[in-house]
């Protein structure tokens, strides 16, 4: 960023209906209203995309301007007075809504978007349920699988062109376009979706025309609550919210964070909820016996590790607070190293995704340094090479793994340790069979804490509902050694 850009922007004063607004110079007029909590019906405007001005819902009048115009195609100017509460504008908006509903199937009872649909919101508000049109609707293709777990229902589409602008301007993959003219215009899938950000299409589609195959029909959205957090999928650390309720976690969506992810997140990040509510989550310490994991008393573990040489390999995905408490509790242990996930894919994909999948490598390095421990990969390899039957090795398992081969080869090297204990957020998977004991630790959604992303920015992890034993974090297991 240049020096000029860093200067605080001049503030502009304007009036929207009877409310005085003060916003930075250059702000989009509709954006100014929305950012100030004013509800303005709009379908095509999206702050992360170029202006299209096609839905014609955000019309306003401005004193001194002869004709109404869409607020999304204007920027704020000092002293302007705009209104969208006059009779003329309200009538116009109601009619434009009516035009939107004209060829819309109104199949809300079977639509996944119901509850968070732009059309439904406004026609409930404006009381337009029965479309005045007794004339036949234009029919288009219903359920089409268009790739990347996205499903298109062309009949529900209101042609706001958000999706086409997204694939043209953000991913530049151009899979979608609008073909034909007039009311025969429809979204055309030029080629299957093939980008790493396709789930954003589901978020930005204001109606139920683009839905997620992953989420479709699993839950009605009004039964869900959102927990704001940070994605642990890579070192970018996108701000996200996770939708969950007592029966589980269902989806991850981005939160606007201008410093980190803007409006978007990648499709890898969408999957970070998958392990949160799997049925096999640990309910307490487990022992591997007779080819299966069984509950075990802590005293048994204590007994086993008593005479051993304790060694630790931490993951690079814990919170700053966990590292802190860990190093506080295990002050006397000298053998502590760090397993870093290997780089996967391009260093940076030009949008958000980064090859370094360690969501808190910087936090880990800082904590290691402070504690005088060596966080380097060499130190970890050296530890693996020198393991003996006298060692009790505690491994904090990474919460998300991309490169399973690398992971398997790492696990194969720990076998020289006489006793092996995994601290994991996961369920009892077969790859854990090399461990003698499993100890549950909280997932990223079951603890309060912070991580430091690749820009050295701190982002927060928030605690939501828990679906397994999650009351003890890594440091809390220190009592096993007392």
């Amino acid at each position: 960023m240049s020096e000029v850009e860093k200067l605080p922007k001049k503030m502009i004063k304007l009036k929207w209906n009877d409310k005085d607004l003060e916003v930075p110079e250059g702000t989009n007029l509709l954006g100014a209203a929305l950012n100030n909590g004013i509800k303005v019906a709009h379908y095509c405007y999206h702050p992360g995309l170029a202006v299209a001005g096609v839905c014609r819902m955000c019309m306003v009048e401005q004193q001194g301007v002869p004709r109404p115009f869409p607020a999304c195609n204007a920027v704020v100017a000092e002293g302007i007075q705009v209104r969208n509460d006059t009779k003329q504008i309200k009538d116009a908006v109601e009619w434009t809504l009516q035009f939107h509903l004209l060829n819309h199937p109104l199949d809300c009872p079977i639509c996944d978007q119901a509850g968070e649909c732009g059309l439904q919101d406004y026609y409930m508000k404006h009381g337009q349920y029965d479309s005045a049109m007794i004339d036949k609707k234009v029919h288009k293709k219903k359920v089409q699988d268009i790739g990347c777990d996205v499903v298109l229902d062309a009949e529900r589409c209101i042609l706001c062109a958000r999706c086409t602008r997204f694939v043209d301007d953000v991913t530049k993959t151009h899979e979608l376009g609008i073909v034909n003219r007039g009311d025969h215009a429809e979204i055309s899938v030029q080629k299957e979706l093939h980008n790493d950000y396709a789930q954003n299409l589901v978020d930005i589609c204001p109606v139920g025309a683009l839905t997620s195959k992953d989420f479709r029909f699993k839950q009605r959205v009004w039964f869900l609550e959102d927990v704001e957090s940070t994605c642990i999928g890579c070192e970018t650390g996108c701000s996200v919210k996770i939708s969950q309720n007592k029966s589980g976690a269902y989806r991850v969506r981005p939160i606007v964070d201008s410093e980190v992810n803007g409006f978007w997140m990648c499709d890898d990040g969408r999957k970070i909820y998958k392990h949160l509510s799997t049925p096999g989550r640990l309910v307490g310490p487990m022992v591997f016996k007779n080819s299966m994991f069984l509950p075990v008393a802590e005293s048994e573990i204590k007994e086993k590790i008593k005479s051993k040489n304790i060694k630790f390999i931490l993951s690079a995905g814990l919170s700053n607070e966990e590292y802190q408490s860990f190093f506080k509790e295990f002050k006397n242990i000298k053998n502590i190293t760090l397993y870093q996930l290997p780089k996967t894919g391009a260093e940076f994909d030009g949008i958000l995704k980064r090859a370094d999948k360690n969501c808190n490598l910087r936090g880990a390095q800082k904590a290691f340094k402070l504690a005088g421990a060596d966080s380097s990969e060499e130190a970890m390899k050296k530890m693996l090479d020198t393991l003996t039957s006298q060692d009790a090795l505690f491994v904090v398992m990474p919460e998300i793994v991309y490169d399973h081969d690398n992971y398997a080869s790492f696990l194969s090297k720990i076998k020289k340790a006489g006793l092996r204990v995994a601290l994991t957020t996961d369920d009892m998977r077969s790859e854990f069979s090399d461990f003698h004991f499993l100890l549950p630790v909280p997932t990223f959604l079951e603890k309060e804490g912070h991580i430091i992303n690749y820009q050295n920015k701190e982002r927060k992890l928030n605690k939501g509902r828990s679906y397994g034993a999650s009351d003890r974090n890594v440091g809390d297991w220190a009592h096993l050694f007392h």
Partner: protein
Amino acid sequence: MSIANKADYQNFTLLSYHHIPSVHHLEIFEEAGGYEMMKKCFTLDPEKIKEEVKNSGLRGRGGAGFPTGVKWGFFSKDRNQRKYLLCNADESEPGTFKDRYLLEINPHILVEGMIISAFALGTQRGYIYIRGEFYEQAMILEKAVKDAYKRGYLGKNILGSGFDFELVVHRGAGAYICGEETGLISSLEGQKGRPKLKPPFPAIKGYRGLPTIVNNVETLAAVPWIMRCGAAAYKKWGTEKSPGTKLFSISGDVNRPGVFELPLGIPLIEVIEKHCEGVREGNKLKAVIPGGSSAPIFTAEIAKEVRMDYEDIAQKGSMLGSGAIIVLDETRSIPDILKWTLEFYHHESCGQCTPCREGTGWMEKIFKRAEQGEGKLSDIELLDKVAFNMRGRTICALSDAAAMPTQGIIKAFRGELESYIKIQMKNR
């Protein structure tokens, strides 16, 4: 050389060369006085040319009637900046065929007009966007452009003036919406012919994001005459607010349809009775559409009173538009006219903005339902409301162009629509 081969600047501004046989040949055009003004203009201050055009009061002949000099005044004066001059030869408004008539007989008047305008505006490049169906006309134009290049009237350093101007003829693919200036620009850019949001206006940010002036064929073709005879002479014709002459395309139920160059402000009835030799077969006049398919229809009574200038037509509830006069006699059915209008606009809406995309289709469906005998008298009200709500709310004026004639017909011929709905119901 005979007098017949000289241009008639006394009686015509636009058709002053049209009586000359083979005037599409550069030499013949030139012998008659063509390209004289271009040469003279290179010796003038470009600002002077703009001023003369502004003083003439010339209004855009593409339909909106915006004063050309004012539009040119919004344009960047920086002669080094890359800018474009586009000529709109898409002529697709039903009823309009004057640009075609002008071009196919005298393509050089447009080329000369464009060179002068380009010099005045400081644009280095121009395109003539010609309607796809005008194949022959495009060939005639291309030949004219080629000949002008050969004579050194186009290209680099034209006649040693230091002024460069490249001119290209570009054929459209047959879409009414590509006549809308920003639809035209999208199409020329190689995109789908969809109008762009305004602001920014093309004069600021047009073709390829650079300043662009779009003018109709007839507008640009009027420039050489204005430079030759002066703004004051131009204003001797027409009214104060509608100076000059205009090409009228007259079709329908008259004895002599065609294109006529007439002074603005001429009574419509004089156009029909005198120039078109009256309504065909002595039939009674029923209605007139005065400015192309987008213009609200006039009943015979109003048609007999109206003068053909921007303000009088507007005052009586319609518009001069492109100057396409469609005359309907007593044998014509108004519902037919409405149906044809609705079908046309439904077919031509580009579909990007909601009121137009949905409204044009909806109106046609309402009408078709009535045609099937399933209409209700209240459908007239519904049609009127839909049309009303399509106006003034869209990216381009096509939505208005579909709504205005619909509302016009309802206003002028409600009784006929009502009986139509009833008759269709009975005949079901």
